């Protein structure tokens, strides 16, 4: 192997699959994780911790439902705090998965192959976490269905001018498409697992999930068509979902929310945080399961480069806010900018600048990009930074808007934190289950890479 085929030579050099692999080695390596008889002790520890955190979420939400929104730190004027911050954060994280799966597929960026599966899984689980928050943040969650257009005898209908209704459609569409996309992509691999499983229960479960996949040419043809179509469907969602989420703020009158830059800025931020999360997850994963051959340095580098690009768009967004505050001459906007940087929440603001802009610049250096654990650290920092960004946008704007008489600070209560940390537990629990029982890398697609690295079995 001296030369990389042209179509995989995107973004940067280096192999997307280390040489020397055969169909068999790829299949064995990936399916063995799911089919292993013995669950690794480390998995149990990781899942156990995640599960405990998920139980914390259950407890926190239970308490919330018993008592009311007042268990959180919210007040008047700050009607949204951790709830919507977490929602936006989680939705944003999901975006990388869709981008990797759909847009990079359509652009024939084949380096995506080894990371798309768990990026999609991550999307799904992140959307699940995200979807939780709009539901539980309602004062009366038991009437959540008022937000849906359902036929009722009083002919009541949602109020379609509200961005929250757009959210309902955007997020539910996104969740549906993401699920379908992920599941369709899983079909050939589920069949592989079915065929390779030794134990009968596994055979049955994988068999049912594989939906009768036999690998015939017709199956493959339909599969490819369906996958491409779903990719086409998912592509606008990458842009639309976070655009709609940003409308929650952009259509309001509140200084710091009422900003036309929000849609592109939110989308870029979403991809930024999403890729950071993919890195956060993939680096330990590849290290623990020895998947360095599949998730190569080239993947990590490419993702780091996406981070630089989207990070700069985000930085542009911050700069645009500052510029518009000055250029627009709106005293409320000007106050807001000052208040963010020098008001009581200055640590949050400067931390986010540090995390999202300054830390990202380290990725210009190849030495840093090629050190997985340094990269991992930066990714974590960016995750924190993006959470802070949403916190600053949502909370700090609300604490001091138009009338100083009603200005008031917000601080998350312990139930806010429990819900937030618990949602991470939910996310990780689902992810651990996914890692244990489903192929974390697309076996079928990796096999096609084997062709390209000329590692075909004799």
């Amino acid at each position, binding site marked *: 192997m001296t030369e990389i085929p042209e179509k995989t030579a995107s973004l940067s050099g280096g192999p997307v699959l280390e040489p020397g692999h055969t169909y068999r080695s790829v299949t064995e390596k990936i399916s063995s994780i799911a089919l292993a008889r013995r669950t690794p002790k480390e998995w149990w520890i990781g899942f156990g911790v995640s599960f405990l955190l998920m139980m914390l979420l259950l407890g926190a939400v239970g308490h919330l439902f018993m*008592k*009311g*929104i*007042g*268990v959180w*730190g*919210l*007040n*008047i*004027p*700050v*009607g*949204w705090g951790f709830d919507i911050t977490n929602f936006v954060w989680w939705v944003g994280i999901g975006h990388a998965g869709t981008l990797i799966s759909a847009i990079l597929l359509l652009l024939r960026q084949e380096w995506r192959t080894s990371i798309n599966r768990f990026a999609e899984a991550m999307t799904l689980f992140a959307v699940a976490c995200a979807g939780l928050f709009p539901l539980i*943040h*309602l*004062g*009366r*969650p038991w*009437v*959540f269905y*008022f*937000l849906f257009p359902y036929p009722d005898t009083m002919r*009541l*209908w*949602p*109020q379609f*001018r*509200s*961005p*929250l*209704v757009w959210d*309902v459609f955007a997020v539910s569409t996104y969740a549906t498409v993401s699920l379908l996309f992920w599941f369709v992509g899983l079909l050939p691999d589920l069949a592989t697992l079915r065929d390779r499983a030794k134990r009968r229960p596994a055979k049955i479960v994988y068999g049912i999930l594989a939906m009768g996949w036999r690998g015939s040419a017709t199956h493959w043809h339909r599969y490819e068509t369906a996958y491409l179509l779903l990719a086409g469907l998912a592509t606008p969602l990458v842009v639309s979902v976070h655009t709609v989420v940003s409308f*929650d703020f952009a*259509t*309001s*009158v*509140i200084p710091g929310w009422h900003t036309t830059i929000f849609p592109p800025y939110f989308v870029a931020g979403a991809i930024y945080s999403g890729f950071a999360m993919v890195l956060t997850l993939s680096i330990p994963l590849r290290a623990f399961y020895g998947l360095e051959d599949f998730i190569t340095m080239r993947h990590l580098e490419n993702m780091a480069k996406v981070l630089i690009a989207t990070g700069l768009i985000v930085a542009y967004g911050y700069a645009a806010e500052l510029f518009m505050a000055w250029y627009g001459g709106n*005293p409320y906007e000007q*106050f807001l900018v000052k208040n963010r940087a020098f008001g009581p929440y200055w640590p949050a603001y400067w931390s986010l600048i540090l995390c999202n802009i300054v830390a990202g610049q380290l990725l210009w250096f190849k030495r840093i990009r090629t050190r997985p654990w340094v990269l991992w650290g930066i990714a974590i920092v960016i995750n924190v930074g993006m959470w802070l960004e949403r916190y600053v946008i949502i909370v700090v704007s*609300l604490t001091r*808007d*138009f*009338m*100083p*008489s*009603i*200005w*008031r600070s917000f601080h998350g209560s312990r139930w806010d934190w429990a819900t937030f940390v618990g949602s991470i537990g939910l996310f990780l629990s689902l992810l651990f289950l996914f890692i244990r029982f489903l192929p974390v890398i697309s076996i079928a697609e990796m096999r096609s890479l084997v062709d390209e690295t000329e590692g075909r079995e004799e």
Partner: protein
Amino acid sequence: MSERAPLDLDAIRARLADADGPAYWRGLEELSATDEFRDFLAHEFPENADQWGGDGVNRRRFLQLMSASFALAGLSACTRQPEEKIVPYIDQPEELVPGKPLFFATALSWRGYAVPVLVESHMGRPTKIEGNPQHPAFPAGGTDAFTQASILNLYDPARAQVVSHAGTIASWESLISALAPVLQAQAASGGAGFRILSGATTSPTLAAQMKDLLARFPQARWDRWDAIPRDAVRAGAQAAFGAPVAARYRFDRADAILSLDGDFLAGNPASVRYAADFASGRRIRRDRVKLSRMYAAESSPSLEGAVADHRIALRPGGVGDLARAVASAVGVASGSNAPLSAAAARFAAAAAKDLGAHRGASLVVAGEGQPPEVHALAHRMNHALGNVGATVELTDSVEVDPVPSLDSLRRLVEEMQAGSVELLVVVGGNPVFDAPADLDFRKALAKVRESVRLGFWEDETSEWCRWNVPMTHALETWSDLRAFDGTVTIAQPLIAPLYQGKSVHELVAVLAGSPDRTSHDLVKDYWRSQRPGLDFDAFWKRSIHDGFVAESGLPARNLAPSAAAANAVAAPSAPGGLDLVFRPDPTLWDGEWANNGWMQELPKPLTRLTWDNAALLSPATAARLGLASEDVVALSAGGRSVKAPVLVVPGHPDDVVTAHLGYGRRRVGAVGRGTGFDAYHLRVSAALSGASGATIAKTGAAWPLASTQLHQTMDGRSLVRAASLAKFRENPAFAREAGEDPAKDETLYKPAPLPLPASDPAWGMAIDLNTCIGCAACVVACQAENNSPVVGKEQVIRGREMHWLRIDRYYQGGLENPKTYFEPVLCMHCENAPCEVVCPVGATVHSPEGLNEMIYNRCVGTRYCSNNCPYKVRRFNFLQFADATTPSLKLMRNPNVTVRSRGVMEKCTYCVQRISSVRIESEKRGSPIRDGEIKTACQQACPAGAIVFGNIHDRESAVAAMKAEPLNYGLLTELNTRPRTTYLAKVWNPNPEIGGEA
């Protein structure tokens, strides 16, 4: 779904014709006996339940599940509910129409004076108290905050409920029989060991009863004690006129006013009237560009200082010094003059000149906290300025037998300690808690052989009395009282006593040996004796109906003060030490209101503090002592010390600490427990209104204070717009020009067509910032009208108070003596309401008449509307705030307003229930709603008439006239919200000789 076959009407007719007997049919589909209908029947009715198998639940399974449910359901039904018979009206009470309120005129008591009110009653339950605008003393109607909150006292579950004896439940009859031998013994000794202690009163019936009683027991005595005594006022009048003359002021006639620690706008028995009169001098209109000018010298920040054009903060003695300087400048001998500071001297000179320039139209008012000499001086100044008969009316004392209450109490305590008091009857009050600390009333009480207490609450005093009788609320009993001008109101009950309450008249009747006399008989008989003649019934009915006895006011007398100058000069303040000033609490008064949640949660007008009192300090003094708000300090005076949290108040005089009395109750209901510190502990008989030489020591502890407003300045935003009178004359439209008001068509969207013609009403409101005195009566009125819950201190700290109407208080200028602005903020009912577009479920929508309405049932609680409200007037039920369980509070609720559950947003509705009921009436009578026919609760309560509501389509309406004023402006109109609530900008009337332009 299969398409339905069209009905075959001919076949139906044929079938009906064939049928035998009465044929019942469920619909035309059945009659047509189509296949679809048979299928429908088969699935719909239980006899076919066994065919449900296809849906996944078969009949057998269904029965299994249901039998289990029924068996479990049976477990909870083991106790049989008691049989209760309900009885319908046999004769419908006259005028009682279910769902329609009735209004009755009666009177509450405030410091012994009548507060004439109209009480709204729903099916026999009083629910809301309003002022009585027909009453001659209060022609503008309106109330203060206490009057509004009184209804909550009536229904307070913590009220004293049963007669008790030595801690065990007893009965009224057992009290009567137990007292009989005691009274007999007293009768033998002429009542030498018999004492009655009550607060000041104006009740003619009670006066007559007391006279009778004291005739039976000539050696007995009726002592008086009020925790907030008006002794200085009486003594000042005594010194000036030689008699306890009462003065009533006509602020509407005064062009120059000097307030010496004045407290006429709040707490005074005439405050509601004074606020109205004062407002009339401050109401500036296109055709009346004239303002009174007020000077206020004060030793503690007050409403009077906040509304004054010139205010100076002085140490308590400094106010007297300033008064003497002004007095000598207007030609009243005032004895030796202490030197004044430059600022005070300039202030005094300007004030004196202004007063002198408005002879007969000026007014000098001294506050209750000032010593008698200052009151006497004020009387002399008014006389010298020719104000008597013009702005000051002097009458005989309105109070019955006014005695200096401190002397009265001191003499009583001495007797009690000597053991010579054998029977003590304590009527109301709470002397164990609020008597001067050095008298130690509690210890003296222990030496009294038999003590009887008539008390509204179970409080510190009832704890130490042997017999406790629950007192009736003013709405539960007959009585009579005089208003500040002497006009008598015969108070009628609206409801039978909720508990075993007895009135003071009934208790005194027992003491006088006629225990079977009811309040009704006592009051009526007294008045029959006063009005002999055939027309008594007509007089009685007329007086009760109107809420006052016609022509019963006291006539003004023409009196001249004695020329003798009281030369007493207040002891100079001890250098270095702090002056301690006691003031009644703005919301708890003397502590009586400690268990009233509405008053506890009502932000104090100036400090915006709720649920606590604090040691108020000026910023400079706090900085000197190294203190910040919420620091706990040991506050000591005269060898006594209490721990108190500090609150730094801009404009507070330096080296003075204000302690509001009434907090720190030890025995009180659940609401008042653990609130504030007891300033009475520091108050001794020698220094009732304040002490000098107080010290403050930091303890290092902190006590969180619940304030509803954390930012005190407008931050350069034009939320309250103000100018001096001169600037207003230059540019009357200054307020409008300070903001941006986009034209109606300045929108990308097609303006929504107005669904109603211009002949239909469009509701709007205008609030005059010139007349608003910040008294907060509107806030409590709103709470009472709209069933708003109380959330408690912790939730206030978290920013979750539920007031639909808040009064923003902004400071402008330096910390030492800033200008104070009050701005009531309620829902603006924006025509382009930002809240409406963001609600995902359409729970807040616009009515054709321009109301921004909340549909609680539809609200899911996203809080997006509140986030998007630039005025932040929406309130969210973060928890289950409304008390849905306490039975007595259910009686209190306004039946026309939903009690909100947790998780829903709420806000001001412009009292939509009042609009609806008036609209129904107007439709019934077939004529349009008249201007002023609808009054919102806040408007009705406002003593100053600052809030005007009405139809802005009607060009003749008061609100349209206000909105046409040049001062009219809207808040944040640059957002194109098009608010229906607008404000009239504040205009100050500064004296150019002092400067300090607004």
